[in-house]
């Protein structure tokens, strides 16, 4: 199969890559662009480990094809911290110990950031519903939800 030449923006930087039609956006991010912060869990859109934003929409990178990324602006976990300065969500995840093995964490952070951008003052129920598509097999959900609520409070105050 002929490869597609795709131009997009990733975390603010213009990128170009070649991809097979059957490569998902997840394959492209991890293998072609070396951005391995986005994880592969189920590959069927159930677990949310591959959560990224595409033109501001939270999506599963495993269900989107690389060719569909043409002309879009993609946000991944690598774009979350500002250099060495962690995003408030990242700091609160550390403070609340909202991770154990950490595989699900990039997905949770990207999804939580997307929630706080549209809803800066979410209720606990809203957080739980928004993060329903992200699974944590260590099952540390309560700390994750508390970290997100705490980060939201800090970001509103800032």
């Amino acid at each position, binding site marked *: *199969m002929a490869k597609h030449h795709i131009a997009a923006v990733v975390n603010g930087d213009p990128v170009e890559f070649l991809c097979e039609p059957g490569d998902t956006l997840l394959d492209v991010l991890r293998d072609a662009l070396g951005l391995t912060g986005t994880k592969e869990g189920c590959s069927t*859109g159930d677990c949310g480990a591959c959560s990224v934003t595409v033109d501001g*929409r*939270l999506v*599963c990178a495993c*269900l989107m*094809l690389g060719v569909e990324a043409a002309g879009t602006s993609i946000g991944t976990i690598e774009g979350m911290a500002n250099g060495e300065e962690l995003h408030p969500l990242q700091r609160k995840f550390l403070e609340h110990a909202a991770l154990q093995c950490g595989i699900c964490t990039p997905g949770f952070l990207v*999804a939580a950031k997307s929630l706080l951008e549209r809803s800066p003052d979410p209720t606990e129920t809203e957080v739980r519903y928004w993060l*329903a*598509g992200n699974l944590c097999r260590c099952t540390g959900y309560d700390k994750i939800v508390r970290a997100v609520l705490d980060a939201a409070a800090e970001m509103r105050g800032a």
Partner: protein
Amino acid sequence: MEALCEFQVLSPTSLAGVLEARTAHPQAQLLGGGTDLVVNIRRGIVAPAVLIDMTGVAELRAIRADAQGLEIGASVRLAEVAQHPGVVAHYPVVAEAAASIAGPTHRNMGTVGGNLCLDTRCIFYNQSQWWRSANNHCLKTTGEICHVAPKSRGVCFATFSGDLAPALMTLDAEVDIQHAAGKRTLPLRDLYIGHARHDGSGQGDGKHYLALQPGEFIAAVRVTSTPGLRSGYDKIRIRRSIEYPVAGVAVALRRVGDTLAHLRVAVTGTNPRPVLLEGTEALCGGALDARVFKGLDELVRDQIMSMKTTFTPGHYRRRVAGVLARRLVQRLFAG
């Protein structure tokens, strides 16, 4: 994880481009958000040689919702439907159904056309290639029997579980179906031909669940507004925040004084097609009393055909559907 099969992707930006691509590749499958199709490709359930990405087709991305009517293009994303102020204000059943589909990522990706054409599912079909080959493939793929109903003699009982279809059916929606030579319009309820109890033998095999001819696809869905209509959607899931419906119910009704003047109820997640309950007119014309509730329970009981397609047993799903219908009718009637 299994790699995706080899395929070619075409990305037309206009309706003319889609028709051209379909003429050149008659066996191509249409790709919306990919939340259903890409998963099925990954599981080796389908192996299309060509995919046509519909999400960039300008003509299919429009949404219009006001007090006169509702028209939604097939490539509009589910999250857009759920949040559209006109849909929320005038067609709450549609907004509520869209908001209840899966999780946020799926609603951000999935499209209206994809949800209306959602593949039917069951616990024997929605499994990996490896799992299915170990269990003998079912008749919806390459095998000969339906594992849900081994004596079904060629009928597939996989369940339709889309949420938009029942919501739109209670509003008497029509779909615009596009093909190379033009367009035809069909009442949405006639789009679904999955097996129904009243089907005779040789008709309604359940494997073919949509009345689309080769080369046809859904371009838009349309509703004409009925003044005074109240509508709503609710569903039960194993996880309330995500998941396919154990049963989903849409209700549209009109109240005049203390009289129930109009009632439509549609159910999803229980049969190989979404079911617009027949016989609800007979429940109208009087107060909302025990007679209506008893009648509604009987209609649900008689027309729901929930079988062993998911982890919750059929008799439970039938009762759940009845309870949801009753609660929704009460809520909407009270206003």
